[in-house]
């Protein structure tokens, strides 16, 4: 059974990425700018299952037709694993529409607030706990 984006996982588990995710080992407000929201549409090139934060890499085509690879910081891998996700669940090629806050240094890096799948479901949606494990 493939677990890739299975409806079971993404509908039964309540998760949110949440602005500033609240999981940090560093200050999100220091790294990212809430006054620089970005909305991106692209295809997942890779998800890096790292701690304290995992990263989703998204290929996004800009107005000139160039593909820019955005690094989108999200929850910890451990927090996702404890909720039943596993590396490989978010397959390369998956189309995502994301809302995020860009890094203050102007790079194509952002703190992920919301990620919507092509069928309208929201990736990792739900209510964040005040303190989750990471």
């Amino acid at each position: 059974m493939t677990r890739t984006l299975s409806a079971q996982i993404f509908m039964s588990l309540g998760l949110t990425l949440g602005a500033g995710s609240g999981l940090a080992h560093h200050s999100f407000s220091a790294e990212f700018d809430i006054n620089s929201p970005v909305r991106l549409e692209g295809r997942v090139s890779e998800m890096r299952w790292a701690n304290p934060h995992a990263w989703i890499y998204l290929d996004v085509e800009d107005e000139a037709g160039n593909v820019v690879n955005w690094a989108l910081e999200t929850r910890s891998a451990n927090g996702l694993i404890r909720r039943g996700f596993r590396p490989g669940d978010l397959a390369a090629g998956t189309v995502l529409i994301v809302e995020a806050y860009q890094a203050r240094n102007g790079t194509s890096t952002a703190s992920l607030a919301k990620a919507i799948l092509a069928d309208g479901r929201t990736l990792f949606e739900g209510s964040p706990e005040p303190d989750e494990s990471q």
Partner: protein
Amino acid sequence: MLPCYVSANAFHWILLMTEHMFPRILVAATASYLLVGVAAAQTLPRAQDGRPNLQGIWMAVDRAAYDLEDHPARHDMPAGRSVVDDVAIPYQPWAAEQRQTNFENRATADPLASCFLPGVPRVMALEYPFHIFQTDEHVAITFEWQQVHRLVYIDTEPPRYAGVESWMGNSRGHWEDDVLVVTVTDQNDRTWLDAAGNFHSNAIHVVERYSLRDADTIDYEATIDDPQVFTRPWTLRLTLKRQTHLDRILEYQCQAEKEEANGDFERDERTWYPAPIPPENAPFNADAGAQLPLPATPSDVPRLADGSPDISGYFMADAGGANYGLEARESDNLTPPSRGQVVDPVDGALPYQAWARAERIDRELPHRGYDDPTAHCFLAGVPRSTYVPAPFYVLQPEGYIVLLHERMSWRHIFMDGRDSLPDQIRLWQGHSVGRWDGDTLVVESRNFNGKAWLNEVGDVVTHAQTVVETFTPIAPNQVIYRATVSDPIAYTRPWTIEMPLDRSDDELLEVACLEDNGDLQHLKDVRDEYRAGQNQGDRS
């Protein structure tokens, strides 16, 4: 030399003659040797459950940390003999070439050159001491090197998170008579086996065997099976010696030491040891702290054989956002809210000295985010280690309370009333002595280095802090945690925070923070841009 050679040969000849002529003597001698072996087995230190007691401070005496195989001295390593059975590691041809490439590039390619987690069995061979703690259900190994720890679950089901790769892998153990056998699975392919480029893939499967030879010696074996890299399983053998001259292991924060040396992590003259009390400080009123009554512990909480509460297991603080401010605050910008954890003073405000309040406000500015030690993946200190948003595991081996934090670090709490450390020995996690006051564990800590922040918004603490923590069980799976901090450099009086700690049936994963830190450069860019602007302003 020659006479010795002749003499040795002559002795060997005499032995052979003796064996031939007096076989009974040899039999008797062999029997007495066996008796000595039996006596040694009988006199091994044993735990209450009768198992050999491995608890104590150990270190490998071989030079396997440098190169597992026979090797001459090199500029970066002393010579040493092979610890591998059949002398050489049985590489597949491609892997032998890779090992050679690794060797040539080892100065930068060695993961330990980047202070990364060492993996197993390499961590057992490092020339830094480690402490083994033993209970019926766990064996924990805490390492001085980079505050790494391993938690071995004894006689349990397969790992809850089997299949999730990590740097140190999943360890499961069982006893085979007097031998502790530990199976290590799910290690990633990013660690090496030594400093000479010997390596493995993520198919590595390790079986360790710990055998007490005598009270001060462990014969350690690790059998390594990795069909992607080797032609057959092979075994390395180390001699671990009890470090009888040590009464504790200290800290070696490899990455912090490196960044302090190269300037990437800057000294704070106001908080780091031995910063003095600022002359403009208001007097510190040590007696102003409230004597908060301890919560009541019901009789039905789990207890150990000696009657003290059993507070072992997996815990997560219900911290209410303490990592984003100890004073109550709303969500702001991208920083989550905090419900406020300060219970003394009753107004919930930290009783800052004026300079420290100003510093606290300054630390929340974006260009200061880089200065938070946890952004560098350094240790969180005390009490922050308890409420960083990551779980921890408590063990209660004889004479200790041991805390293993998922964000790779540990605390040893000495329950034997030992003296404090000399003043000049300063630690991220401090020196902690504990005692039971009724059903409450009371822990007093000092000897801090003053490098830690209390949270991401920069609540201040300095090397002068002493911390009294209480852990009071109020339900079978809940402990009320308090920490009273007395710091005459940063505060005008002691203050206390409180939060529940919730125990659940879970296992630790691994936070390999430094190894995957994608944030620090961004924070540094923000800091550097700010400084460049300041310099521009200075020049204009």
